[in-house]
């Protein structure tokens, strides 16, 4: 299933996801991933996770193939990773630039590379921070197609996004957060409460005041 976290900037979406990935200690509560407690069975929990963080570096001086080989080696994966890597590079359109280093990648290519990296070890849960932010519609479409296949095959995707349209179309459940608090959580239809998710979101978090700027006239 897809689970969406939406909220204004600074609401706590990335904070939540970094805690889920074990990069931040939660101030209260526990995090369980596929039945494994992140605090007491960290390695078992992280093994089930595929992570795509926004705005963080990768080993920048490697090519896509080298990065996937490195990641497979780091996780001690068996030989099957090569087939999966080839498929991911092809379906995400990254095989066309075999000698390009990650540092030269555009934002869209970088997102796709992150997704390939997150899926290489066939995790049960994907945690994606803003997977569609600042990318072109073509890259967004290929990422969406891959994610749908992953969910159809039984995977779970936990993602944060500002793209309400995607969340409304794909997510089974959604949490609206603001100021570090969950304002509402549940099935998307219930949260939307008869209007569009975007309208409901604005109603929940409030909109900035709008008045005419006379000096523009």
């Amino acid at each position: 299933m897809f689970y969406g976290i939406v909220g204004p900037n600074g609401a706590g979406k990335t904070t939540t996801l970094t805690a889920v990935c074990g990069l931040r200690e939660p101030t209260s509560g526990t995090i369980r991933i596929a039945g494994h407690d992140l605090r007491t069975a960290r390695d078992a929990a992280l093994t089930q996770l595929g992570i795509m963080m926004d705005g963080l570096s990768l080993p920048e001086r490697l090519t896509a193939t080298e990065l996937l080989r490195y990641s497979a080696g780091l996780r001690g994966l068996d030989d099957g990773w090569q087939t999966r890597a080839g498929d991911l590079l092809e379906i995400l359109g990254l095989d066309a630039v075999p000698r390009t280093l990650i540092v030269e990648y555009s934002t869209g290519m970088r997102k796709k590379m992150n997704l390939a990296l997150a899926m290489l070890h066939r995790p049960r849960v994907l945690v994606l921070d803003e997977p569609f932010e600042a990318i072109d519609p073509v890259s967004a479409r290929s990422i969406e197609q891959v994610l749908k296949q992953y969910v159809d095959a039984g995977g779970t995707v936990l993602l944060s996004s500002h793209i309400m349209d995607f969340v409304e179309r794909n997510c089974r459940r959604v949490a609206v957060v603001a100021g570090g608090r969950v304002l509402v959580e549940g099935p998307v239809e219930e949260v939307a409460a008869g209007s569009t998710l975007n309208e409901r979101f604005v109603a929940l978090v409030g909109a900035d005041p709008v008045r005419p700027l006379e000096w523009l006239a």
Partner: protein
Amino acid sequence: MTRTLFALKLRLFRNGPHDERGFGLVAGLVLAALVVAGASGVARGVLHEGWIAAALTGWGGMWVLGPLAQPRHEPSVLSREWLRGYPVPSWRLARALSWTELLGVGPLITLACLLSLLVLAAPAGPAAVATAGAAALTQLYLLVWAGKTVAALAAWLLQTRAGMTLAAVQTAIMLALSFAGWVPVAAWLLPRLRDGDIALTALTPGQLPASLVDLLTLLPTGWGYRAAISARDGAGWGGVVMPLAVLLAVGVLLQLGWIALTAHALRRPPRRATPNRPAAPGRGLPGSGVAPQVRAVAARELATWLRDPARGVELRSAWLTPLLMAPIIAVAGWNWALPFVGPAVAVFGAMVAINTYALDGTALWQVLTTPGAVKADVHGRMLAWALLFGAPSVALAAVLWALTASPVGGVAVGGAVVAAAVGCTVAPLLAVMMPAVGADARDRVYPGQRAGDPTGGQMTIFPLVVLASVVPGVIGAVVAGRWWATGLSALLLATGILSTVPGLVVRLLHQRGTRLLGAMASRDAAALRPSAGTKADVPAR
């Protein structure tokens, strides 16, 4: 516009940071005072005036060599990035900027130093002093613009494909001269040290050879001195006006050159140097007996050492420096000391590997979220370092021992073994403990971009590696020059270090890893302190 830029620069000075600027000001004024005091000693007849010419040559040389010694240092307070989008012709902007370049610690302390010219001319009366004043100002003008133009040229070259090698060669030359420049002097003072004879060559204080002083006054750094001395000695207007006119003319040309380079930089969008691409898709690191996780990290590290602009400069300079030191030592006739170039490779290799975690930046998240990867990362970094610096340093010491038949070759090899063990393990330890956080890995494309200043870590590991490498030789000497004592102590020491420090680094990275990642994400090393936030904090955007 010039007034606005001046005001902006003054405000930037006032807001700091003040540490480096304050230190430069105080240290520069002390040195300038020494030169002025020397000039007054000339007037009293206690010092030969040639020493002032030598001091001014050294001072002027720093203006030109300084930007070459620190090729990755942003030379200007007012960044070009801020001004690139302004709707003002680039030539006009560059011209206004050029006058603000005269405002700074460098010009101030150089002016203080050049007051020595006035002191030199003082015995000849007010007219000579006035001429010396003009000489000081024109000399300052030339030095400032020589330095600024060299810095602008270096900054431009760093953005070219050859920038990495150029920066490495610059750094290596400066380091080799700094670390081995004393050898010819020592060889002259101690000509029979190889045989254990420490009798010093007798020194006779006196004056510099006249031909050397003449040569110094022919250099651009000596033209002001030449004008001041000519005025003092009443050499006629030709001897006075000519150097001043040439100083002014060359200064104007250099300023125009700087304006042209800066206008060019302002017109162009920021350049992106083409990184070193692999000739073919890379393969994993072959090797048996090494865990695949460690092999994967070592392969990543080797590729990064060769392709990352900051690491590429460090790798090249770490290897070029000892290789440049070797001919200096050989020319001085100290062939018996050549095997010590081996441990020097380990020393410089350790110094350049002091900041690898900060250079890799936020890519650390992958290591922290992959089960078992922390240990593999630490060991893989060590394996890559051993392949690039450690093993070659021992091999180089052994080969140079065989070639020179040096009586201290065994000590050099033993020292290289221990230096390699310390460099291999302590460099990643310090990289975790005291990272110099700069621009993130994804934002660095060419060597001129800020990558954090690891001087603190380098100054920590340098004495550590040097002292450790001396230990086997000292132990060998204590047991009456027994070679086996040197070799055995080197092996035991290296084994002890290799079996204890890596575990410490792994434990430390487990404890501080998320804080280290937070520090690099926020580009603030203060985030490393436990009090800076909650236990593990990647800043939310």
